[in-house]
């Protein structure tokens, strides 16, 4: 089975001299259009396995696509001299040009501006979270799409909203849906777009992201993993973190900058790691807890995710009740485990059959919800730390009898 990029990177981290993994990684980068990266990998393959033609052929393909025909010819000539040349395919000059153009995981990409399209995620596409969606519509979207009404009551559109909760529960999806509902341009910002080794450069990158959003009003600026960018200064060891948080606060403050019409959304799994100053009024003063999906939402998820899979009659509500606190990602895991079980049975000689409810229930029993760790940590906050800012979490923990 083909490994993903992350799996290959992990494999190479564990054993940098794993030639097969490196070859697979190089091919993957090449297919993704990251020719520079792929070339480096093929060159390493050449060094690690100089007796094989594969590395030279790969390097040749990359050189050719990058326009270095002479180097490509040298590589191919080198490959021809290897004993296994006949077994590997020659560099096909007919590879589609699109491969060079798409992807391109260069060292740094600018913050991704995702234009809204007909296929954009809407609130109706987000399964479950009924109460949460209502709250967001009233508190976040309505001021944005009907600024006149809210202005008459002295309320402004824009500002900051921090979504927090266990991983895999749809924070990013909700952020995209908010952007669609607000009919605003959506800019997703990750840690790699901001951080830079040089002093002051990260702050400049951050300011540039905000400036771009202000130019594109109405705009939604989305910071995923906010804790990584606005890490609590009391816990950090470097001045770099402190200056970046200071700049972030400066950009959020309405006094220094006009953020009217710019909705700043952020998501984090670890709200306790976010600098407390970020949560003060005028910054991310609205904090929304995104809990794991409820029974109805999980049943709906099972129904949607199993729609294209051969299944017998399944009681989705029973499945949902058997998977308390499971996130969307966990439900994927349950379905995959059930699929594997059925396929293994068929390969073992059993007659072909669809996935049945007991397969899914058995898979659910074997898996632990990934949200539990987060919920236990949050329980410490509510139970022992006396932190009043997690009332929604406290209510949820009581509801699911974890408190």
């Amino acid at each position, binding site marked *: 089975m083909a490994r993903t990029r*992350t799996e290959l990177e992990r494999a190479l981290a564990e054993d940098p*001299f794993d030639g097969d993994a490196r070859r697979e990684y190089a091919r993957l980068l090449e297919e993704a259009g990251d020719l520079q990266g792929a070339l480096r990998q093929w060159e390493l393959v050449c060094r690690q396995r100089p007796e094989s033609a594969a590395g030279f052929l790969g390097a040749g393909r990359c050189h050719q696509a990058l326009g270095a025909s002479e180097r490509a010819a040298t590589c191919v000539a080198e490959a021809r001299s290897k004993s296994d040349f006949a077994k590997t395919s020659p560099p096909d000059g007919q590879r589609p040009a699109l491969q060079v153009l798409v992807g391109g995981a260069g060292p740094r990409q600018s913050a991704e501006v995702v234009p809204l399209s007909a296929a954009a995620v809407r609130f109706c596409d987000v399964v479950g979270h009924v109460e949460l969606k209502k709250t967001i519509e009233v508190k976040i979207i309505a001021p944005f799409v009907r600024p006149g009404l809210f202005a008459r009551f002295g309320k402004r559109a824009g500002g900051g909203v921090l979504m927090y909760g266990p991983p895999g529960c749809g924070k990013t999806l909700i952020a995209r849906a908010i952007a669609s509902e607000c009919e605003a341009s959506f800019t997703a910002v990750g840690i790699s777009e901001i951080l830079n080794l040089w002093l002051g450069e990260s702050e400049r990158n951050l300011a540039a992201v905000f400036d771009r959003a202000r130019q594109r009003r109405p705009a939604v600026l989305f910071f995923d993993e906010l804790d990584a960018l606005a890490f609590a200064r009391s816990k*950090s060891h470097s001045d770099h973190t402190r200056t970046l948080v200071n700049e972030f606060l400066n950009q959020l403050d309405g006094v220094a900058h006009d953020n009217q019409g710019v909705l700043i959304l952020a998501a984090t799994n670890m709200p306790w790691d976010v600098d407390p100053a970020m949560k003060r009024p005028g910054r991310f003063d609205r904090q929304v807890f995104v809990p794991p999906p409820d029974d109805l939402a999980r049943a709906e998820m099972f129904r949607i995710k199993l729609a294209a899979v051969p299944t017998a009659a399944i009681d989705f509500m029973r499945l949902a009740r058997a998977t308390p606190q499971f996130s969307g990602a966990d439900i994927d895991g349950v379905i995959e485990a059930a699929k594997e079980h059925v396929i293994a049975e068929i390969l073992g000689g059993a007659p072909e059959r669809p996935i049945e409810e007991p397969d899914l229930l058995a898979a659910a029993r074997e898996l632990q919800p990934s949200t539990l760790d987060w919920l236990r940590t949050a329980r410490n906050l509510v139970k022992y730390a006396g932190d009043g800012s997690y009332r929604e979490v406290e209510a949820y923990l009581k509801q699911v009898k974890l408190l």
Partner: protein
Amino acid sequence: MSELDDLHHQIERLLEVGRADEARRLAGRALALDPADPDTLCLLGAAAAEAGDHDEAKRLAHAALASSPDHEPARVLLFDVLMEEKAYAEAEAVILELLRDNPADPDHMAGYARLLLRVYQLEKARALVAEALRHDPDHALAQVLDALLHVIRGDDRLASARLGRMIAADPDAAHVVHTAIVVLGERGKHREALELARELLRARPNDPELVDTVIELRLASHWAMLPLRPFIRGGWPFAAVMWAVAVFGLIALRLFVSDTAAVAVGGPYFALVVYSWTGPPLLRRWLRWRGF
């Protein structure tokens, strides 16, 4: 700036914010660029150590040292991992070598003092901390160790003075709050220490040791512990004196008063003894279960 330097910076940053998994993923990318780069190996080792995989961290530190024998971050990583594993003899060999190469480095002095404190070599630890603070009066670890050494010695005044200096310099820093909790707890100010510990727990709710500390401090400051407060304050010497006074006092009392009066005096004392055995564990369980 090379792509590798940029990746190193991002990995360091991810490690600082406690995202070991992402740091490992990024380190995989860095390793793909240069599989033998000691800085990358060392950062990958630090990520493994952060995730609790000590064997892998040690293996990577050794791999970095095989590639560059004098690589200081790899040696420091190895020292930290050995300290976590409580392999103090091996850790001492590493830190001594580091000190031999950099005799005036306060980081290494404080690191060695930390080791000596763990093995109760208090005088040597004190001398090293003093030397580290002479080189860098604001060294965070050296200041924490200095305060702890004063607490261990029972010198509350000096511990408070050190704590005061730390608070004046950086009142919000987590290490300062940690030190304050220890010093206040030692001075019997459990309620104040509890408030600080709860404040710290709000920032680190996933720290099980901190949860235990908070529960212990709540227990010590609970009203139900009032009858036992003299024992908590006085410690073992007070308990021994009380025991001796009670035993011999009750025997002597029987010679002069009636049995009823002796039971009236001895009964509460007996109840106190039973309560001192059963009360705190029960209350601790209750607080852990119920929260506060």
